[in-house]
């Protein structure tokens, strides 16, 4: 009820008809003082309630998700020069739920060293549809808006604004691991496959 009080004090200049007749200066100041106190205290209560509520509501912005390390498989199982679709099952924490999630990634092994490995995020950089590798034309093709990427993830057609996102990866004891935090690339050199 207090919050709905009129914002302008002008409507009620005086406490009441009878009082106005004999109203002294002191009476007016008491009224003003009480009105100020009312608005100050109401604001204080409002702020006290808003801070935790707004902070709680904005929680998802304030807290970022934690990336995890995922085992993708033995390095030797990935062919050289052909993007390979990998599917992994991992435990993911979503708020209060720990869920088993299946996730995919595209792994490209450019050569037989540990450095020539790219792990692509499986979503088109346009609007996030799942793309696939077409071996006939040697392109990643997105079914939604016909976005096309070459084997290095560089845009070669359609609306995608940037090259395919990648996951940081690492080889330990002959096993390929990736970190579940995609990284964006602004530009791309479309070198030979």
């Amino acid at each position: 009820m207090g919050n709905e009080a009129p914002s302008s004090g002008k409507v009620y200049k005086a406490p009441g008809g009878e009082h106005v007749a004999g109203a002294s200066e002191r009476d007016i100041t008491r009224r003003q003082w009480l009105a100020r106190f009312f608005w100050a205290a109401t604001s204080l209560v409002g702020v006290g309630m808003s801070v935790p509520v707004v902070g709680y509501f904005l929680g998802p912005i304030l807290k970022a998700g934690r990336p995890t390390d995922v085992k993708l498989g033995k390095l030797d199982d990935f062919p050289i020069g052909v993007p390979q679709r990998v599917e992994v099952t991992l435990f993911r924490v979503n708020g209060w739920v720990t869920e088993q999630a299946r996730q995919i990634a595209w792994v490209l092994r450019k050569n037989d060293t540990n450095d020539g490995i790219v792990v692509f995020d499986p979503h088109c950089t346009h609007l996030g549809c799942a793309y696939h590798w077409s071996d006939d034309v040697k392109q990643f093709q997105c079914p939604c808006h016909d976005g096309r990427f070459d084997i290095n993830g560089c845009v070669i057609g359609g609306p995608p604004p940037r090259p395919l996102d990648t996951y940081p990866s690492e080889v330990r004891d002959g096993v390929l691991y990736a970190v579940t935090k995609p990284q964006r690339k602004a530009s791309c050199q479309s070198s030979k496959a």
Partner: protein
Amino acid sequence: MSIIKSLADWVDERLGTREIGQALFGRKIPEATGLVSWIYTLGSVVMFLFILQAATGMFLAMNYAPTPENAYDSVRFISEQAPFGAFLRGLHHWGASAMVVGVALHLLTVFLLGAYKYPRELTWVTGVFLLLIVLFFGFTGYLLPWNEKAYWATLVGTNIAREAPVVGPAVARLLTGSDELGAQTLTRFYSIHVLLLPAAVIAFMAVHLFMVVRQGVTAPPARGGKSPELDLETQRRRELDKYHAQKEAGEPFYPYSLSKDVAAVLIVFVAIMALAWWFPAEVGQFPDPTDTNYNPRPEWYFLFLFQFLKYFPGSLEPVVAVVLPSLVFVGLLVLPFVDRRLLRHPLDRPLASGGACAALLGIIFLTVAGASSPQVSPYVPQPAEVAEGQRVYRQLHCDYCHSVNGRGGVIGPDLALATEQRHDKSWIVNHLENPQLVVSGKPISPMGVLPVLLPDQTEAVAAYIEELRGGGPYSALAPVLFQTYCMGCHRLNGHGSTFAPDLSSIGLMRTRSFIHRYIENPKAVVGSARMPSFLTPQGPLTHEFVEDLARYLAVQRGSVAPKESTSSSR
């Protein structure tokens, strides 16, 4: 400024805001001074509390999942991870208690000042319904955290409803939604708590407030003289004329009464914030329907009823638990129609005033008695990592294969009972990460096919398993400590005194956390404990020694059953 004014003018011309504002805030309030003027703020305080409960509640609901699988974990998420979550829950928790107190005081003072009488009978009737709604809010909200406290209190609550004559079983089924407390109960309570009751409260509050504005706030009661024998109609007309004169002589609601209202609101709000900050609502433990150690207790504002029940034999229980409260409710509803005298001053109505004070004292006495009644198995919080491990264990359904104290699957070993294999924590961590490497003679464990846990989950599950097994290794000193400090009173595996309970199987009933806390300060765990504190400076042991001793005792799982429930002397 002129833009704001012309905008206000525009709105006013269409909506009539100034007229409405004048009716709501410019209306006059009969002069009240001293204590009575503060009593007049109670209605506004209760209304503020409703706003507080609504505001905190609708945001808490954003991270709450009303299913038995997820409710407890989502509440724990709110309390432990969401920014301001613990504080927000604290505000809602203490706001609920304040609401019950506020509504009860409001009712009591309106009764004492005779404000329910002509022409405000309807205000009173809607107010009694609002009281009932507030109590239902309390009852349904109490279940939502789905912890042990919530589970057992609701179990008892719905069983009380079942006791009601004739309609009891049907009512209980309506509440629980099925034969037992479960998924359907939780969704029912949730939708009642967040949809049905708020709608009801708004409807009744609208009428209640409309009546307040329409009939005006009562003038403070005056002592009634020996009124001449007039008929009721004349008395009422005179009373109304007198009231209108008093009202005209009063000051407008804004800012005179309203500033006092908001001062009271500010005090109450600061108190609730302090409570929420220093005493946040507890998360508790996941309920275990097979737990026979737990002490169900209702929320404190139902304690008086809980205590009252203890004084009556079982055969009278339906009368005390259902019929009596229903009669009180009906009595309150019809009160203004039965008591039609216009005398309002409490001293002119000794019977009513005396009765109200007696009822209040009785409720206070029963509440205190209920709160101080001994608990057989008090709550000692588990370490956060152990609780997290228990959550992962439950969510990943480890109990499909493993069991704890005989509950669960039989494919893997029982995690609590297999104490002869006392592997340390690093073994458990290693086992969870590479099951096939550690189990000797079993090259591939069935666990090998499971996806790998997140690293800190492995740690947490290991901590939970370790807690189940007694909480980690103890030193060679621990048995010596026991002989030195404990055997004078306690008995273990056939040695020691029988003065205090035998501790040979204490590990089956108590966790390391509990034993540790108990040795530190028994009275803090069980109020009536006779055992002295053993922690320095009151006692001889440091934290390290207490922990050592607690771990030693937590693995005492012998077959000798203690005479009494072990560490809780009653």
